[in-house]
Every structure is written in structure tokens, then in C-alpha cells.
């Protein structure tokens, strides 16, 4: 007789809260009376879910017969995604795209994607894994295209949809092959089925092809070169708040499952995939950093830089050690702060000037608006890995893990990549603080103004919904650069969820 699995509703509560919240937000958007409260409602949902997640800290539990597991690692990743989602809600206030798409729809799509991320970080089964990754992706395809009047936005959504589907298809094919080799969809079952007593299937070509296809599928989602071509276009075209959400939260969630899947299900075959992932990381570091050189659009630049950063983050997984995974979590958290500070400023300047996200939009910002210039400066210095920022400690952490794991050559790649990256991060700083200060033109000049351009908001740079996230994120970048211990503890507890020998 069929035995229904026992469900621990307490441990499942963050997911339930998000799902319920999503419906409430969607409904609230329909009624004019409460329409204005939608962003606040969304923040409340995110806050509740985060609270429930924190409540489950230190209490690892298997959920729904082992289809999911809530542990420190998944909570850590989910909290990073929650932070970014909350910031995205703030950045979206007064965003054109929200009006175009409808506030209720926009925010419920955001929550839907967030739900996918939380599920993904907890997935321990191929089916949950795939369902979660689609729950994450499909709302994002739509969100990218929400700025209906911008050609770039629609193009971005379509491009993301096609490339994303290709990635999902590859991933699914890989999963099928792994299921074929092991006869199980559970991560633990795969490890037992292939790497078990006989262990004869480790060298099987179909099994190896399965691993490779899964890695490629995940590389699409985490924008690791050479599967990154969609990244700059999609980042540039999407509404900027959505870009900031994609850049960090998607990456965090996809890396979460990347780590869990490769460590728990395929850890026994680490010797087979370690070198391949190391090469992927190295390619990503080089391609991303070189691609970002000379970009005029800040969003494109951050897109390419995201490719490079994905390479750094992936190198934390390559060594398959606890130190490596802690470094990965640490770097992701730091990356969230650094990107958030940058994107908040870009959003503000997009609304203030006619230059959109061009580097011109921040020229002379240091004198004009120090409150915006400092967060962007700190973010750029942090991404470039200069000391007294969380970026430096993050790189230090990664390099130490790599050297300990006998991947010193990859550490050298990180160092070289960082060097190249100075050549595109520092010009942004230079544009803000150095050189001629031309007053930013209030009236649209001939170049740059397009009929589809959004109306400008000359006060955007003073609105707390933008300045506050930027300032807080920048403060966090410096704080954890000087006193990194709390974040190190956080990362170490997260990585302790894995049974490394």
C-alpha cells in the first residue's frame, strides 16, 4: 500500500511562506485599494521567510522523503538570495518596468523566482533539482522583458528564454544519463548506485557524458564561459533592478545546487570532474575579464565581470574541500554586497541622467553626489580585490583553499584575472573622481536621447530607496573587509553541512 511521506511542516515553512505570500501579493495587485502596498507586502513576505529560515539554522532536516534538505548551507544561500530580493524590491520602487508589467505581477514573479532559488538550494533529488531550476528561471524570463517599451528588454527576455531553455535541456539530458547509470534520482542514491560496492560504472562513458552535460547545463545558469554569451546582452537589456537580482541571486542558487550535486551525488568521482571544472573556471576568469575591457555600458561591464567572478566562485568547488566550499559561500556573500552597491548607483544614475547605464552617467559624480559616488567606488575597489574590502578577503580565502587543495595554478589565474580586471574597474572610479567635471546636462542632448527613453527623475540620487541600499551594502563591503570574522564563521558553518572527510 502507498505510504504517504511524513512532512515536517516546520522545516518546510519558509517555502510555504513564500508560496502563500506570492499568491497574496498577486491578488493584492488586483485591488486598487491595496495596490500601493504591494512592495511593502513583498518585503514583509521576504522578511517572514528569512525569519523562518534563520529559525531553522542549526537544525538540519530531511524533507519529503529526502527530496530536499534544509541545512546551514541551503539556508546561507537562501539568505543571500533573500537579501538580494529585498534590495531588488527597493530598487524597483518608481521603476518604469513595474508600472508596465503591473505591480502585483512584477512582485509575484520576483517572489516566484525567489521560491525557485530556495527550493534549488535545498534540492537533494534530480526531480526537485530540475523543477526548482525551472521555477527559478521562468519568472526571470518574464521579468527581463517587463520593460515593454524598450526593445532591449524584450530582446533580453527572448534571448534569456532561448539560451536558458537550451541550458535546461542539456541539464535534463545529463540527468537522464545519470539516472540510467545509477537507477536513482536521489543524490545519495546516485552516489550509492554508481560508486557503490562494485563501482564499475565510474569509467562508463555514458555516466561521464551525463556528468559533463549536467556541468554544461549548470554552467549556462551560472554564466561560466564558454557558456556565457547570453550574459552581457541579457544584463544590459533587462530592467536594472532585475539585472541586479539575476546577477547575484541566480548565481548563488545555481552555485548552491552545483556544489550539492557535485559533492553529494558525484563526489566519489571527483577525480574525473575536478580537472574539467578547473579548466572551466580558468577559461571563465580569462574570458570574463578580457571581455569586460573597454565596455562603455556599466551593466555589460558588470555582466562580463560576473562571468569572471563566476570563475572565481567555481574554483572554490574545484578543490572539493570544506575550506573550498566556505570560500565559495564567503565570496558569494561578499559578491552580493559589492554588486548591490554598484547596481543601486547605476539605477539612480539611469533615472537621473540621459546617459542610461553608460560610463558617462557617473562622470564627475564624486563632486556632484558623493553619497552615490562612494558606494560605487567601494564596490569597484572591492570587485577589483583591493585590501580593506570584502573582495580582498574573499580572494584570499579562495586562494588559500586552492593552494591547500593543490590547485596553485588556478590561484595564479585568479591573481592574473584580478590584474586584468583593474583595467576596467578603475576607469569607473577615475570617471567619478578624476578629470574634467562637466555639468551633467539637464536637457536631453541630441545624442543619447531616444524616443523610448524613460522620463528622467532628477531626484533619484537622493531617494532613500536607492541611497540606503547602496550605502548599507558599501558599508558591509568595508566592514567585512576589516572585520571578516563574522562572515567567515557564517561561511564555515554553511560548509560544515557537507560530510567532507
Amino acid at each position, binding site marked *: 500500500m502507498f505510504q504517504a511521506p511524513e512532512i515536517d511542516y516546520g522545516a518546510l515553512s519558509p517555502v510555504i511562506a513564500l508560496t502563500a505570500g506570492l499568491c497574496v501579493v498577486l491578488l493584492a495587485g488586483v485591488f486598487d485599494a491595496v495596490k500601493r502596498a504591494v512592495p511593502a507586502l513583498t518585503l514583509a513576505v521576504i522578511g517572514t521567510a528569512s525569519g523562518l529560515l534563520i529559525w531553522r539554522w542549526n537544525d538540519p532536516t530531511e524533507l519529503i522523503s529526502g527530496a530536499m534538505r534544509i541545512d546551514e548551507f541551503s539556508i546561507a544561500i537562501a539568505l543571500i538570495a533573500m537579501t538580494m530580493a529585498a534590495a531588488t524590491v527597493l530598487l524597483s520602487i518608481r521603476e518604469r518596468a513595474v508600472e508596465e508589467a503591473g505591480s502585483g505581477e512584477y512582485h509575484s514573479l520576483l517572489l516566484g523566482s525567489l521560491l525557485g532559488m530556495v527550493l534549488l538550494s535545498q534540492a537533494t533529488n534530480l526531480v526537485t533539482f530540475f523543477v526548482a531550476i525551472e521555477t527559478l528561471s521562468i519568472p526571470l524570463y518574464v521579468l527581463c522583458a517587463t520593460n515593454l517599451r524598450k526593445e532591449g528588454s524584450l530582446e533580453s527576455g527572448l534571448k534569456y528564454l532561448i539560451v536558458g531553455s537550451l541550458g535546461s535541456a542539456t541539464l535534463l539530458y545529463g540527468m537522464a544519463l545519470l539516472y540510467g547509470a545509477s537507477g536513482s534520482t536521489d543524490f545519495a542514491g546516485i552516489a550509492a548506485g554508481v560508486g557503490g560496492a562494485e563501482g564499475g560504472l565510474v569509467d562508463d562513458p555514458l555516466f561521464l557524458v551525463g556528468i559533463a552535460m549536467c556541468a554544461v547545463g549548470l554552467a549556462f545558469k551560472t554564466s561560466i564561459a564558454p557558456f556565457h554569451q547570453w550574459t552581457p546582452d541579457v544584463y544590459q537589456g533587462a530592467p536594472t533592478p532585475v539585472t541586479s537580482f539575476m546577477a547575484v541571486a541566480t548565481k548563488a542558487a545555481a552555485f548552491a545546487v552545483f556544489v550539492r550535486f557535485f559533492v553529494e551525488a558525484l563526489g566519489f568521482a571527483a577525480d574525473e570532474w575536478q580537472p574539467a571544472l578547473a579548466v572551466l573556471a580558468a577559461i571563465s576568469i580569462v574570458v570574463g575579464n578580457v571581455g569586460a575591457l573597454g565596455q562603455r555600458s556599466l551593466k555589460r561591464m558588470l555582466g562580463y565581470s560576473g562571468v569572471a567572478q563566476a570563475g572565481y566562485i567555481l574554483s572554490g568547488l574545484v578543490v572539493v574541500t570544506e575550506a573550498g566550499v566556505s570560500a565559495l559561500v564567503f565570496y558569494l556573500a561578499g559578491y552580493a554586497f559589492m554588486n548591490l552597491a554598484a547596481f543601486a548607483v547605476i539605477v539612480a544614475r539611469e533615472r537621473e541622467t540621459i546617459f542610461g547605464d553608460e560610463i558617462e552617467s557617473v562622470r564627475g559624480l564624486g563632486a556632484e553626489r558623493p553619497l552615490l559616488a562612494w558606494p560605487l567606488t567601494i564596490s569597484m575597489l572591492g570587485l577589483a580585490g*583591493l585590501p580593506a574590502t570584502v573582495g*580582498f578577503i574573499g*580572494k584570499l580565502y579562495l586562494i*588559500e583553499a586552492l593552494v591547500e587543495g593543490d590547485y596553485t595554478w588556478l*590561484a*595564479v589565474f585568479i591573481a592574473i584575472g584580478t590584474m586584468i580586471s*583593474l583595467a576596467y574597474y578603475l576607469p569607473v*572610479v577615475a570617471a567619478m573622481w*578624476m578629470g574634467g567635471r562637466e555639468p551633467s546636462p539637464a536637457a536631453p542632448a541630441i545624442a543619447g536621447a531616444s524616443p523610448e527613453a524613460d522620463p528622467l527623475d532628477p531626484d533619484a540620487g537622493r531617494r532613500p530607496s536607492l541611497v540606503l541600499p547602496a550605502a548599507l551594502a558599501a558599508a558591509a563591503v568595508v566592514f567585512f573587509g576589516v572585520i571578516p570574522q563574522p562572515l567567515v564563521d557564517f561561511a564555515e558553518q554553511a560548509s560544515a553541512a557537507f560530510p567532507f572527510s
Partner: protein
Amino acid sequence: MTNSLLWTPLAFGFVGLFLPRRAAGWWATLGAAVTLAIAIVLAIGFDSGAAGLQDTVDVTWIAGLGVDYSLGIDGLNLFLILLTAVVWVAGTAFAAFREQDRPHLFFLMMLLGETATLGAFLAQDLLLFVLFFDLMLVPFYFLFGAWGNDRVGGPSAPAATLKMIVYTLIGSLLMLVAAIATAVIAADGGEITFSIAALAQNPIAAESQRWIFWFFAVAFLVKMPAFLLHGWMPDAYRAAPLPALAVFSGVLAKVGAYGFLRVVLPVFPDASVEFQELLLLIALASILYGSVMAFTQTNIRLIAGYSSIAQLGFITAGIFALSADGADGAVLQMVNHGLVVAPLFVIVAILAERSGTEDLREMGGMAARAPIFAALFLIVTLATLAMPGSANFIGEFYILNGLFDSKIVFAFVAISGVAMSAYYALRLYQRTMHNRRPDGLESREIDVRDGLVLVPLVLCIVGLAFYPQLILKRTDASVQQALAKSASPEKLTSTGRNVGSGSTYRPVGGEK
């Protein structure tokens, strides 16, 4: 005490942000002066006979990674710290006397630069050292880029500065990897520590030392800069604002040389011995190249810049003589050179203000109505060319003495550098101060504000000329400790010992 030395400048810098524009410069100068006072108190309390670290601070900083916040003072860094404090007071005061664009930020960056530099000198944890070494770049990136000069027909100030940053960081990021590799290899699976003293106790295998040595060496040689790695120097020097350049050239270049003494020789002794001749070769090339370039340049900043390359070549040669004499001389010469080059850039600034140009060919006759200025400049010039009687002479003498002991061929080539320094230093002096005065050039005495900056620096030069033992006596024990593993025992007894114990001061040699 050590902590307050390190953080006082930065604290003053932050408070200065909230003061009115006009007060920012004076507040910063006060901050630098307070730092100097703390440094002097520390120096007075310094136990001169001891080799080990004094006034140490040691706190766990990042437990999981084995990084400690550990500072300390010994004979190697005591006088470099004093030098930093002195030069910074001068540079900040010089800037405060003049109108600065966006003064809050300018002086914040100046003081952040001081904290970072002091941190690099004080750090006793390898990773902390790398951190401060990199951090030094951030304020100078802003100072050079935002307050620098765009050159007509050349790179703009931000571009020139970017080049400098990329050059320097190439070295220091690889150094980061190398530092971590050193600690991981040394730990051999155990608890990781970055403590320089602990790493020096049990050097890692010679094979690993071989590649790690170069990662460190390149970082330090770029910073100095040494021949072949100096590509960033001309553009950056031409772009830099002069007060910042005075401290940069006076102190930051020494961090590279200091790094060799603090980190490379003790932690990688086998590799240091193995590559001794190669490093000496680079040092000699720097001496020759720097001197020849200093002959031919007409831009007065670049004359000072290239002469620094030559002087730092000398210092490197002294360090890689791998004998106590050479290293003692190198430490002395680091201080000397800092004390000489900082006023030199102040003088360059004054000359440029008077003549409206930085081209040697359009200058001349400045001395006519300015005897005091001429006298001060002459003292600086004579010290630069290591006139007997100046502390620079003692420094170069020690370096050559050490070099003769260990590698006589190199010593003979290095001697030519002494002769050449006389040529470029006197050429700079003559062409600016003597000769016919071009039309429209005014010769007038320096005013009080510049005098207040220049005279104390020149007094330091003169004082040190009378009593170089002040430094030699205190560095010797630490230098011997630093060299213990890389120098052969007979080269560890320095000439300085004999001189120090004698009742009379004899600059030349130890006998009779």
C-alpha cells in the same frame, strides 16, 4: 603605542572630513605631527642592543585562515617608521600651505597613505604585510589620478596612474599567492600561520623557495622600481602632484627594499643565496641605467625619478651583498635617500612654481637673489651625490664594503655609480641655480612657508651626517638576525660593531 602610531593618521583623516575646507590641511598636518611625536616616543624607548621585536601587538584577526594582526618594531623598521613620519609631516604641511582642490578628500588620502605605509613597515604577519602593501596603492591612485597633471601629447593623469597601479599590482597579487603558498607549504597539513618570524624559523624546501622567491622579488622590484620593471615610473612621476610625489618617492619606494630584508632574506634564504648574482646584476643595471637616464633627462622631476632608480639599485646591491655591512648600509641608505629625495621634490615644486616650467633648459640663475634657498638646495645636492661627510657617504661606503667582501667584481661596477651620481646631481643644481637667468624668470628667496618645510628636512640630513651611528647601532643586531640564514658566518660581523664600540667616530673602516 604601536597601534596608536598606525591608526592616528587615519583617525585624523576621518575627523578632518567634518571640518571646514580651510582647516582640513592644517588638521592633517597636525595629525602627521602627532604621528611623528608617537614615533619619536617609540624610538626613544627602543632598546638598541636587542635584535628581536619590541612593542609588539599580536591579535588573531581571521581565525579560520590563520591570519594574525601582528605588529612590531625592530632595528629594520624603526628608522623607516621615523622616516615615514618625518616625510609625511613635510609633505602634508607643504600641501597645506597651498590651495588644494577638494581638500577634504586630498588630505584624507594623504593620511590613509601614511597609515598604509606605516602598516607595511610594522606588519609582522606575512599576509598583513601584503595587505598593507596593496593598500598603499589606493590612496596614491586617487592622489595621482585626481590631483595630477594631464600631459599634453602624453597620457592623462588617470591613465598614467592606472599604468602604475597595474604594474605594481601585477607584482603584489602574485605575492599574495606566493605568501599563501609559503604558509601552506610550511604548515604541511598542520595549523597555518603567516607569522614571518615563525616562517623564518623553518624555511620551506629549497625547491619551493625557488619560484616563490621570484613572486616576491618581482613585487618588490616593481615598487622600487628597478631596471626593466620601471615602465610605470616616468608617466606616473610626470603626472603626480608634487606633495604626494615627495612622500611617494621618499618612502614608498623603500617598502620594496625593506621587503627584501624583512621577508625575502629570512624566509627564503636558500633562494636568496642561489639568485644573489642575478639580483646584483639587476641592481647594477638599475644603477647604470638610472644614472645615465638622469644625465640626459631635461625634466627635473624625471632627473629626480631616475636618480632614485640608481639609488635604489645601490640599496638592492647592499642587501644582496648578503653581508652585515651591506645590509646595514642599505638600511642607512634607505633613510638617507628618503630624506634627500623628499626635499628634492619640494625644491622641484618651488622651482617649477617660480619658472612656470619643469624643463631644465628653460631654467637658470635662481641662486642670484636667493642665498638661503641655494644653500639648502646645495646641501641636498651634496648629500645626493654622497659627498664625504654626509650620511649618504657612510651608507654607500658600507654598501660597497659589503659588496667588496662578497662579490668584488660587482663592487667595481657599482663604484662607477658613485661617480655618476656626482654628475647628475651637480648638473641639476648648476642648470637651475647658476648659469644665465632666462628672461622673465624671477629669482627670489623662499618664503617662510616653504622654509618651514625645507629647513627641518635639511636639518635631519645634516644631523644624520654628524651622527650616522644613531641608525647603524640600532639596526645592526636586527640585520644580523635577518641575514642569519643566508650570509656566511664571517660576513655577519660588521664594520659597524668596531666603530660603535670605539670612543671616536671614524667613518672609514674599522682599523685604527
